[in-house]
């Protein structure tokens, strides 16, 4: 009978994780990456870049209102969105490359969730002490000391969270101006809302949800699992060397693992790597540092837990020497990814350098198809949009070339030259006139080419279109 059996619970309570402090080469690498990435994030909006008097002087700026993206010397217009698409493709290929070569290296070192959680751990350790002290505090009653420590920690976390949300909005407006507006309460509502939301997510994700974000919320681990193969480098335990594990001085029948649990105690996601590679593991490599430290103390070679590929296991079990890590990394698959990734990168860079500072679109006005003027000449009208992407007000001359002779007039502007303000698009009505009795005037279709020339640099561009004569069907 199963009547007395407790029904299986569908909800498993979270086991709190109290990672111990660890020192070592991978920990040092993580410190460097944390400082560099956080530094880039917080400092970038404050870098200035002179683009002349009429353009913003912020080096990196996403100007949503004017639909411009400024990145140092590069300015991207909305019609150049293919650059963004190209960058996204590069990001995708980069993910393929790094995942197939180094597994979840993104998760372990540079994912914002990892970096900020690491920062929050550091604060927590600094205020509440290392693993054992935090475990004691967790089980302690809510007395004055616990409240004091917890509140201090939360306040520091909250300050970091506000700074995180605050830095984000500076990418979308002039940073010094916005800072003053934010402090004096004059910034846009959306700025405060954005800061509020990002503060809340940083505080909650970094302080409380932590590894649960990676395990339950993030799609990356699932996608990445599909991109790993037997040569992908992951963090693994050499159980053929460590087992059977055991404590004690008599190591006659025991492996190298002394079952000290150092690898488990430092793990930020609360797993035992000796159970094998598992979904929760973000390959932060802190267990490698912890185990290397123990191996050094007991006089054994490092690498009981190490970066390894799946093929290493069979290889090493067979007694063969260790395979060099680089031989795992440089293989056909990763080379193909690298070639694809860099060709798109080179392509985008070339495009960036050959793109023109002027851009012209021509829309023939076909209602009516043509206009007869009093002297019998035939006029066609074209809506010409001229984008001035230079950093100064520029004069553009509009001319037409064709097999036949045409005259060009501009609406509202004497002569053939139109002035376009800096960093803007102007719609100019252009009249192309075929003289009376000419083949173009009395004929059907004539191909014409409209030229727009930047008079300051004499660069010019053209657009092909057609001229309708009075015989048009």
């Amino acid at each position, binding site marked *: *009978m199963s009547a007395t059996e407790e029904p299986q619970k569908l909800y498993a309570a979270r086991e709190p994780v109290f990672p111990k402090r660890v020192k070592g080469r991978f920990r040092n690498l993580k410190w460097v990456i944390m400082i560099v990435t956080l530094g880039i994030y917080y400092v970038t909006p404050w870098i200035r870049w002179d683009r002349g008097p009429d353009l913003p002087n912020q080096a990196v700026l996403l100007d949503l209102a004017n639909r411009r993206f400024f990145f140092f010397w590069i300015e991207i217009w909305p019609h150049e969105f293919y650059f963004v698409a190209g960058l996204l493709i590069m990001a995708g290929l980069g993910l393929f490359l790094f995942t197939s070569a180094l597994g979840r290296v993104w998760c372990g070192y540079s994912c914002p969730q990892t970096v900020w959680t690491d920062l929050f751990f550091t604060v927590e350790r600094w205020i509440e002490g290392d693993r054992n002290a935090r475990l004691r505090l967790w089980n302690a009653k809510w007395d004055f000391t616990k409240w004091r420590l917890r509140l201090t920690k939360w306040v520091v976390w909250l300050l970091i969270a506000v700074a995180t949300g605050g830095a984000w909005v500076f990418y979308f407006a002039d940073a010094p101006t916005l800072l003053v507006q934010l402090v004096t309460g004059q910034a846009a509502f959306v700025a405060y809302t954005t800061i509020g939301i990002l503060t809340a997510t940083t505080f909650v994700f970094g302080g409380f949800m932590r590894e649960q974000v990676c395990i339950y919320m993030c799609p990356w681990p699932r996608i990445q699992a599909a991109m790993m193969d037997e040569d992908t480098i992951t963090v693994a335990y050499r159980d053929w060397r460590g087992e059977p594990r055991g404590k004690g001085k008599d190591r006659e029948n025991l492996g190298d693992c002394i079952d000290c649990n150092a690898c488990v105690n430092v793990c930020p996601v609360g797993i035992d790597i000796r159970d094998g590679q598992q979904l929760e593991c973000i390959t932060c490599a802190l267990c490698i540092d912890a185990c290397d430290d123990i191996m050094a103390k007991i006089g054994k070679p490092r690498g009981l837990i190490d970066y390894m590929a799946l093929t290493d296991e069979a290889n090493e079990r067979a007694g063969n020497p260790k395979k060099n890590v680089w031989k795992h990394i440089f293989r056909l698959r990763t080379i193909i990814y690298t070639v694809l990734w860099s060709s798109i990168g080179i392509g985008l860079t070339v495009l960036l350098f050959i793109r023109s500072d002027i851009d012209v679109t021509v829309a023939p006005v076909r*209602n*009516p198809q043509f206009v*007869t*003027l*009093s*002297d*019998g000449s035939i006029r066609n009208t074209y809506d010409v949009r001229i984008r001035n992407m230079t950093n100064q007000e520029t004069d553009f001359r509009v001319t037409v070339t064709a097999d036949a002779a045409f005259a060009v007039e501009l*609406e*509202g502007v004497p002569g053939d030259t139109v002035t376009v303000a800096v960093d803007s698009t102007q719609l100019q009505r252009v009249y192309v006139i075929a003289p009376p009795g000419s083949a173009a005037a009395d004929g059907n279709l004539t191909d014409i080419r409209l030229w727009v020339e930047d008079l300051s640099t004499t660069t010019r561009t053209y657009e092909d279109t057609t001229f309708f004569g009075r015989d048009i069907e």
Partner: protein
Amino acid sequence: MIEDHKKHPEEQKLMAGDPDTTGHSWDGIKEFNNPLPRWWLWTFYATIAWAVVYTVLYPAWPLVNGATPGILGFSTRANVAEDIQRFDDMNADIRTRITEVELAAINPEANPDLYNYAIQGGAATFATWCSQCHGSGAAGVQASGYPNLLDDDWLWGGTIDDIHATISHGIRNEDDPMARYSQMTAFEGLLSDEEIASVVQYVRNISGQEADAALVEAGATVYADNCAACHLDDGTGDRYLGAPNLTDAIWLYGGSEEAIEYTVRNARFGVMPPWSAEASAAGRLSEAEVRSVAVYVHSLGGGE
């Protein structure tokens, strides 16, 4: 173990050979009595209650004229009126300024905001009130008396002030004493058929079209005696009188022999209503709208 399986009460009854049925039976097939789930039933009751509350609060029940208004006083029509009023209020300042400046000053250099408003607003007004005759592209209807506003030929003048006056007062209407007015004589009966045929050839000749050379010379005399008073000696017309230029390539009613002959015999009498509500009782547009349309038409390629 199957006997441990806990059965649903209905299933137990069924197994016991005593299913709860509705009593309906077709060819021995019985219908089980499966009542609606309780949550569904309560949701259904809730929607009924909601519907009752809704019909009290919002317009709902149709009556002979209209419907029950609902106690919240909600009306989509009133919302639209409110929206229109809001935009009118936002534009009030610019509309006042448009009526205060010189017409010629509404240009991109002097008043870019007024110009932009006039072009956009003028295009909308044109599409609503003018396009029926002049076409959505303002090209009129060729050879049918609806003038093309894009070309450089103007019966009553193509400066912005001329265009404004024409739109304000209209042409040959009886609603506005200030309307542009001219009336050509219908020469049917006044001139002989030969004289009419010759003057038609003369007019085709001075406008650069093919003409019967034998008749042109006789036509010149007929023209000088009957037409030159208004169309002038050289045939270039007179804008003060609204007499069209006969030497150019543009013909309001067509330049073929038949069309010109019809014009000479019967004359033409195209009309346009007055649009300015300030200038005439029949006008439908505000001064700001009339001015906007004038600026818009002037910008279409024919403005002088």
